[in-house]
């Protein structure tokens, strides 16, 4: 599998996700935001975490309008896979690839902590390596991760099974306490209609080694790589 990690001015977790992709067996390279095309043969586009353009104006707003995003949109329209993590999720929402928006955390503070997520479905390219309903232990690090959408959008996301992950406790129960940023329906990540675009606030890329907190994040990258191993 070939991954392109888009780097915007202010991206800062591109190295973390490159490491995760490579250790799962993907080829991966950085692509500068001013490019108009993706590298040939790109299977997966990753929008990494960070503070693109300082997160000034609205998180992800300026990056969402960068030149390279046209190429990313085209890639998604062809059914190509796109993964947006944290700031990447915010960029996906701002660029119209995913619905809704990420608002300031309910406590108005940046929060960085370990967090369990419930895997809502395991039949997508992103989650095959997990069990449905499994609680995975990853981390979050964001100031604006409070997922918000209008009622209709929310209904559609829920009705069509487009919620990818929810904040949960260690047993996979969805509780108020586990939803620290105040997201609607405890949403931590969502898919696009065709399940080929995933945006999520938590950082699976930081949980890929026992030495550094655990390996529950690996499944996501391994799922992606294995999807292509079979296809190829």
């Amino acid at each position, binding site marked *: 599998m070939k991954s392109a990690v888009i780097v915007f001015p202010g991206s800062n977790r591109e190295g973390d996700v490159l490491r995760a992709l490579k250790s799962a067996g993907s080829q991966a390279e950085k692509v500068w935001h001013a490019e108009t095309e993706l590298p040939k043969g790109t299977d997966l586009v990753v929008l990494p975490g960070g503070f693109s353009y300082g997160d000034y*104006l609205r998180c992800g707003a*300026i990056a969402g309008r960068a030149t390279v995003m046209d190429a990313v949109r085209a890639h998604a329209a062809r059914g190509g896979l796109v993964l947006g993590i944290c700031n990447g999720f915010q960029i996906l929402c701002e660029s119209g690839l995913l619905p809704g928006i990420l*608002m*300031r955390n*309910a406590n108005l503070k940046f929060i960085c902590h370990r967090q369990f997520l419930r895997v809502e479905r395991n039949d997508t390219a992103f989650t095959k390596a997990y069990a449905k309903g499994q609680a995975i232990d990853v981390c979050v690090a964001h100031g604006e991760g409070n997922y918000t959408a209008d009622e209709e959008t929310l209904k559609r996301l829920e009705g069509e099974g487009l919620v990818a992950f929810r904040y949960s406790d260690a047993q996979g129960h969805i509780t108020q306490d586990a939803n620290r940023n105040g997201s*609607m329906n405890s949403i931590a990540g969502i898919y696009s209609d065709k399940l080929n675009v995933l945006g999520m606030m938590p950082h699976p890329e930081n949980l890929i080694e026992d030495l550094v907190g655990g390996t529950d994040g690996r499944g996501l990258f391994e799922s992606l790589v294995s999807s292509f191993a079979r296809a190829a």
Partner: protein
Amino acid sequence: MKARVTVTLKNGVLDPQGKAIEGALKSLGVEGIAGVRQGKVFDIELGTADKAQAEAALKAACEKLLANTVIENYRVELT
């Protein structure tokens, strides 16, 4: 020429920040505030003296970047 663009959340869109500010004001002992909604203003210096040109530039700026028209409204005043 100068302009002020005001961007506010559409009615019905939840404003967690405004809510938190309400809460904070209460705990600071500020009484008599029943609701807060937060928005943004942009004070813009225009590079043109032509009103029509200025308005076009401002509209473009708002639509393309300053407001997320899915959830926000904007208003432009030339000053």
